[in-house]
């Protein structure tokens, strides 16, 4: 009886963000993309910049991001989201421009655009979801696939002599002069989700204040591609992904100012 009485609007401590609309998301159960969408919606609402925000969707699982978060979006050609963001930022310097990309879009076909945009130092934010696999197309090997990890195009595991080594885009970005904030976060536990939220907020503030490019890499799961339950995926991420992609800030010039 008591528990029913407290269901009133003034007692709400957590609810779906206002900017996230009621469309059911197409992501698989337990997908990290949905968590990051929710964080973006929460942060934009908190900063009160929804009217001045333009997101750039990638090609990949997050291609339909414009259906779920109630802000202005542009759909870019495969891998070209950072180039599009760069142009938009120059046209509207007072707007918050961010791209939302997966590892196939950002680290494979869009490597050139990503590195050149970060090196130009346009005040945009790139949110990079790294799940070490091509989720949308059926679990093929990505540039970020770990050594020995099995995917549908490397069924015996990734081998260095045949496939090369996993690409650490954030480490490359940290060496570029144009970036002001490069960080790697994860969304597998409550603590990590809270830290990822702070990192995205920091990146958005850097963009609004014109400090340079920010890259937030989010190590995420792909339970369908990895062929595990969402819970097992989170455990696998902690055991296998995090040793190779350690969490934390790789570069933060803002604190030094």
């Amino acid at each position, binding site marked *: 009886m*008591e*528990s*029913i009485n*407290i*269901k*009133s609007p003034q*007692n*709400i*401590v*957590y*609810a*779906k*963000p206002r900017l*996230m609309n*009621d469309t*059911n*998301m197409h*992501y*698989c*159960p*337990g*997908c*990290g*993309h*949905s*968590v990051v969408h*929710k964080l973006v919606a929460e942060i934009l609402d908190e900063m009160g910049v929804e009217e001045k925000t333009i997101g750039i969707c990638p090609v990949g699982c997050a291609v339909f991001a414009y259906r779920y978060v109630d802000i202005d979006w542009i759909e870019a050609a495969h891998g070209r989201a950072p180039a599009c963001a760069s142009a938009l930022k120059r046209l509207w310097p007072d707007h918050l421009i961010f791209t939302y990309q997966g590892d196939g879009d950002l680290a494979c076909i869009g490597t050139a655009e990503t590195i050149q945009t970060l090196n130009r130092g346009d005040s945009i934010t790139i949110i990079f979801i790294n799940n070490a696999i091509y989720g949308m197309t059926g679990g093929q090997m990505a540039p970020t696939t770990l050594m020995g990890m099995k995917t549908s195009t490397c069924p015996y595991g990734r081998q260095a002599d045949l496939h090369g080594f996993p690409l650490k885009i954030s480490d490359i970005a940290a060496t570029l002069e144009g970036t002001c904030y490069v960080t790697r976060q994860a969304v597998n*536990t*409550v603590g990590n*989700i*809270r830290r990822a939220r702070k990192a995205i907020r920091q990146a958005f503030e850097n963009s609004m204040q014109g400090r340079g490019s920010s890259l937030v890499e989010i190590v995420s799961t792909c339970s369908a591609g990895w062929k595990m*339950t*969402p*819970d097992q995926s*989170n455990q696998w991420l902690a055991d296998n992904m995090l040793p190779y992609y350690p969490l934390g800030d790789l570069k933060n010039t803002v604190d030094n100012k």
Partner: protein
Amino acid sequence: MAKYRGVIEVDTERCKGCNLCAVACPLHLIELSTRVNHHGYNYAVQPDQTQCNGCSTCGIVCPDGCITVYRAEK
């Protein structure tokens, strides 16, 4: 004794039954229903509503934003 009491409300038609809330709940109060929603997913339920302290862990980990958490002082 906990100072707060809480209760969750699950948007059962939006829930995909990923079970992350059940794993994350520190008090193990959430489980998947034996019933399914119109998509065919076993949605999350909180059978015992007297023990919850409204910590919002389930809401934060829920990928689809299905969980609304209410919290009030005892």
